[in-house]
């Protein structure tokens, strides 16, 4: 972890227009929850549905995508990354720092908005708010790591990330039971289910699989990012 790299990365993420992209979905989630509360009153089934499909199913992967790729891909694209790489700092340290920035942004924004929206709908009933907040927190961290890796693997990180989030997790994961096991979304829900006692919610992926999978994917993606950065090549215009 390098504080100067973290400082520059936070400034890049929060000081510009990208912050609006980051806060848009969390604000929409809370607004939607407030609207549903006004219309339906306190409704646990609605709360679980909103958490599953919007908070974990939509907001979390998109936040992960924006933050995970955003902390590194634009710098590689425009060449500003040289400022960080041409320094006596090991590349894995830079990768870890970028990951910490992305993960902290996703985790905080996702967890706060998930808790606020679930609390608005059901208060602390059945542990729905706490469960999904925990799922969003750890799921966000894993997403940040995976999309950070995508940011150094391909120049089309956003497109690939959208395809992964929507096609693999959204469509394939929805219809092919086996694919669900390999979905961050499902792992996040598994965590939520562990805490929540809501009868409207159950998951297929066991906690015994979800937690190790999350840890392995997160650590693996960050290590791989560091290795990729070590071999990052620049091609000149000459």
């Amino acid at each position, binding site marked *: 972890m*390098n504080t*100067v*790299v973290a*400082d*520059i990365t936070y*400034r*890049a993420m929060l*000081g*510009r227009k990208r912050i609006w992209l980051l806060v848009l979905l969390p604000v929409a989630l809370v607004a939607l929850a407030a609207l549903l509360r006004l219309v339906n009153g306190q409704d646990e089934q609605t709360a679980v549905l909103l958490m599953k499909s919007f908070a974990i199913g939509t907001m979390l992967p998109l936040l992960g995508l924006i933050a995970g790729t955003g902390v590194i891909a634009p710098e590689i694209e*425009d*060449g*500003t990354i*040289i*400022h*960080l*790489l*041409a*320094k*006596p*700092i*090991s*590349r894995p340290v830079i990768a870890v720092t970028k990951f910490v920035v992305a993960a902290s942004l996703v985790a905080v924004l996702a967890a706060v908005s998930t808790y606020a929206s679930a609390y608005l709908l059901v208060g602390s009933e059945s542990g729905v708010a706490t469960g999904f907040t925990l799922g969003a927190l750890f799921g966000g961290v894993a997403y940040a790591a995976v999309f950070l890796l995508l940011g150094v693997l391909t120049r089309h990180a956003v497109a690939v990330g959208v395809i992964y989030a929507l096609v693999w997790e959204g469509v394939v994961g929805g219809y092919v039971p086996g694919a669900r096991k390999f979905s961050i979304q499902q792992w996040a829900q598994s965590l939520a289910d562990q805490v929540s006692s809501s009868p409207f919610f159950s998951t297929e992926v066991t906690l015994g699989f979800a937690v190790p999978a999350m840890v392995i994917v997160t650590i693996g993606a960050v290590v791989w990012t560091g290795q990729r950065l*070590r*071999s*990052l*090549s*620049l*091609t*000149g*215009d*000459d």
Partner: protein
Amino acid sequence: MTTTSSPVTTRQGVLELAQVSRWYGNVVAVNDVTMTIGPGVTGLLGPNGAGKSTLLHMMAGFLAPSSGTATLDGGRIWHNHEIYRRIGLVPEKEAVYGFLTGWQFVLSSARLHGLPSPGDAAKRALDLVEMTDAAGRRVETYSKGMRQRVKVAAALVHDPQVLLLDEPFNGMDPRQRLHLMDLVRRMGEEGRTILFSSHILEEVERVAHHIEVLVAGRHAASGDYREIRRRMADRPHLFRVRSSDDRRLAAALIADASSSAVSLTEQGVEVQVTDYARFTALLPRMARDLAVHLWQVSPTDEDLESVFSYLISGSSR
């Protein structure tokens, strides 16, 4: 940074490329180049597309040679972040964090190097490139030349033994250019190893004591700039001269051994010059003696491509 720091003299700072090639798929960008860059200022000269940036990137640890080795004082450059304690790099790409001020940018560089007094180092580096007054402004408000200077300041902040600059004078106005040239020259005289790329001969000539010429990925020439300049000057030149009496001037020119052919055209006299130095000294005297007014004297094949092509054919002879 200081321009008189003592550790510099105790370190060597010799960059070596040994039979280095770099290819992208079937395209060869750099072909079997062997060169040694030692203390002093060396100019890496070549037309656009010659492979200069590729070579610099390999020396800066941002590109692995496809074959051969690139070393700094015998130590591997690729996959070795420790070399950046001794190397400063000014890339050609203009991109700098636009949301930072010049001060924040250079200070961040000093802090990333882990310098004991980053603030002092940043201030000295900004002073050196005359950017102190504009240091409080965001980089995105800078002109191209100012961005270039702030990048130089960030590269110099840790007082590196080796400085690599990729087309550093691009976008600078003449005064800034002269100032940076002077700075580069001074640092070279202090014993630093400085390599800068350029496609402009005059730039290289003004700053470098040694020139490496790269053409189409090949190492075309190497040596003292005067030697290279002489070889460039020795090639046949084609001049076009317009005067108050072309016919009279043409008759006098063909009588002199400096020219091998003279022809009268509608645009003036075209002279095939074989002895460049003699011709350029002779022409004004001849015009004065003949009472002919010279309106225009212009070389017609001075473009770098033809100069470099000549050098390549010369080096392979």
